[in-house]
């Protein structure tokens, strides 16, 4: 960016400034901390100048939006043509209750849907399973059969709104249900757009929703990606996620590095089927957190795009630019929210949302202010959505693409993040790749160590959280904001519904199809078509999961803390 002569002059002037003005100021008024560090503990200097970007080549590092290496953004027009999708996740109670919340959010101007499932659905237990007791419809919506999905989308057109489903070890079943739903309603599969999370690797490392051992779990992901690429051209069959890694306690760099490591493991896994990388890589999508350290996050998003582009081009030999461009959903940081002084969470979320947009996200969920206390209330979700609308419509930050590109700090931090991501990827390669590292608990241990270090730093007061270890107040007896309450009738309603579906279906046919499913699982054939048959016949999620437990076995987690 600067010629060497110019750089020399700048460096000399900088040194002179440090010796004179800066030294004199320091003498009169020392800085208020010994060092300033990011949320992840990296030191940040007081001033960044061209001297920090010594070998900075614009074309090599940045290029233009929509062009390799995509640092400035995956699309040439970014938000000027299409604002990010405002996608508030919702899910609680029965399908009917969540359907009503969806319609409320659409009426408030939300532009995409995102479904949160309850723990039994996420883990593959039906609502009438003893393990589901107390958890039916509590943290998300309960879905046992296609009948529930039909009710969830009643009066909503999956052909015209993109739908994201946050589900992992049972993702392929929900994808099968979504396909069956579209077919029943006469919606061509080419019209379906949206995403299914389906990222099993980060389940083993961070979020801990798993059923089967690692290898069959990866096979399920592979089958769903291959099916989707063939039949659902506008659908993202996997959303490689860093969010949960970070929430589990990782640093920003670990989040980015471990997510990209998972991404490349999927590319390798799908590649084994002989599918050309350019046939499926454009459909891979990502999901990152936007945490509280503004510049660290923006640098992370930019660096992740650059590293992914290089991986796809250089390591996998992708030819299409779409295969190299990283697109991501973003969510503000749940773990940054405090139960005390809950209104402060509105402000935290707004800053985090701005970082996500300045970092070039494609869709965004802003957390409700009440999420350290309960499932978000309707009012809290509306305010969170308004936060995004104000960001887009009033602040002007979305007018120009990558507006922080060229900032000495942001570019230096982006470069540093990129180097640190590569260093992790090299370590992972040296261990034999992502799956080998996973089986050695590498990710789990790294995340646990970072979580512990952060907690210690916070308790020493090195990391401040307003309202918690600074500016504390006497808390009122009860939270000063209205909270969502769980409908006590949900469990019974859902169990009754499930019993009715089971009575009304042809159970002999379901049994026959489940046997066929097991047969397919024993081969290398794709699991999706037979799963679609099963759900169409109203086989329950639990029945499908249990059938495959007989073939695949179960995962047993090694305990690391």
């Amino acid at each position, binding site marked *: 960016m600067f010629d060497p002569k110019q750089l020399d002059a700048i460096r000399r002037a900088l040194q002179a400034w440090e010796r004179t003005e800066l030294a004199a100021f320091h003498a009169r008024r020392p800085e208020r901390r010994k060092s300033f560090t990011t949320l992840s503990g990296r030191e940040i200097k007081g001033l960044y100048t061209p001297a920090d970007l010594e070998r900075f080549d614009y074309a090599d590092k940045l290029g233009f939006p929509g062009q390799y290496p995509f640092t400035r953004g995956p699309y040439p027009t970014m938000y000027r043509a299409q604002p990010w999708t405002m996608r508030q996740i919702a899910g609680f109670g029965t399908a009917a209750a969540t359907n009503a919340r969806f319609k409320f959010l659409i009426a408030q101007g939300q532009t995409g849907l995102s479904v949160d499932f309850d*723990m*039994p659905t*996420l*883990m593959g*237990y039906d609502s009438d399973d003893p*393990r*589901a*007791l*107390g*958890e039916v419809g*509590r*943290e998300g919506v309960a879905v046992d059969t296609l009948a529930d999905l039909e009710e969830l989308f009643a009066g909503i057109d999956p052909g015209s709104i993109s739908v994201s489903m946050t589900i992992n070890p049972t993702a392929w079943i929900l994808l099968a249900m979504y396909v069956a739903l579209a077919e029943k309603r006469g919606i061509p599969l080419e019209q379906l757009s949206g995403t299914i999370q389906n990222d099993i690797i980060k*389940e083993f490392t961070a*979020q*801990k*929703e798993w059923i089967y051992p690692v290898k069959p779990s990866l096979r399920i992901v592979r089958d769903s990606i291959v099916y989707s690429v063939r039949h659902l051209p506008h659908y993202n069959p996997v959303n490689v996620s860093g969010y949960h890694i970070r*929430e*589990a*306690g990782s640093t920003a760099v670990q989040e980015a590095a471990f997510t990209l490591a998972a991404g490349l493991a999927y590319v390798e896994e799908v590649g084994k089927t002989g599918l050309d990388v350019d046939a499926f890589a454009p459909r891979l999508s990502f999901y990152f957190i936007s945490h509280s350290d503004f510049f660290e996050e923006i640098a992370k998003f930019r660096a992740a795009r650059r590293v992914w582009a290089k991986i796809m081009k250089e390591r996998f030999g992708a030819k299409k630019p779409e295969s190299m461009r990283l697109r991501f959903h973003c969510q503000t940081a749940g*773990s940054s929210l*405090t*139960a*005390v002084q809950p209104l402060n969470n509105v402000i935290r979320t707004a800053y985090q949302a701005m970082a996500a947009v300045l970092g070039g996200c494609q869709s965004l969920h802003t957390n409700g202010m009440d999420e*350290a*206390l*309960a*499932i978000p209330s309707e009012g809290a979700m509306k305010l969170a959505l308004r936060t995004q609308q104000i960001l887009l419509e009033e602040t002007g930050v979305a007018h120009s693409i990558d507006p922080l590109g060229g900032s000495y700090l942001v570019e230096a931090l982006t470069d540093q993040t990129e180097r640190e991501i590569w260093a992790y990827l090299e370590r992972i390669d040296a261990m034999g790749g992502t799956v080998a590292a996973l089986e050695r608990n590498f990710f789990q241990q790294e995340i*646990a160590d970072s*979580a*512990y270090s952060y*907690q210690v730093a916070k*308790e020493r007061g090195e990391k401040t*959280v307003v*309202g*918690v*270890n600074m500016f504390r107040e006497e*808390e009122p*007896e*009860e*939270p000063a904001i209205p*909270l969502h309450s*769980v409908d006590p009738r949900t469990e019974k309603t859902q169990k009754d519904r499930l019993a009715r579906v089971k009575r009304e279906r042809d159970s002999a046919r379901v049994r026959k199809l489940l046997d066929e499913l097991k047969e397919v699982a024993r081969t290398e054939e794709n699991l999706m078509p037979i799963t679609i048959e099963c759900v169409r016949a109203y086989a329950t999620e639990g029945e499908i999961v249990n059938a495959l437990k007989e073939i695949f076995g179960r995962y047993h*987690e090694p*305990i*690391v*803390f």
Partner: protein
Amino acid sequence: MVSERKVRILVAKPGLDGHDRGAKVVARVLRDAGFEVIYTGLHQAPEQIVATAVQEDVDVIGLSILSGTHMLVFPRILELLRAQGAEHIAVIGGGTMLPKEMRELKAMGVAELWGVDSSTQDIVTWIRQHFKAEQRRG
């Protein structure tokens, strides 16, 4: 001099929820503080937790619950402990719960609870004080 038995603590994650960051950090802090810590791992049924607690002869069960099921799980654990004649085991816990719910749970017999913004050192201090008092009484 009789060597003092270390306080034994079972850190447990009941239910289907996988949010184990808090449980693991607390387990490590308690271990660093000199207690003997056993961590159950994920997806434990109340029956499994109580069986482990009795078998391992622990002094404390610490439950981490972020799934909203605390009003079901804590009473169930207390009930199972009573049924086994193991009500001497102190039940403590942490997670996402409202002040009102914490008061109700303590009235039922939960020894102490901490919300999501708590300091882990408060837990260490509480356990030390609780067992000092026990020893004086004992």
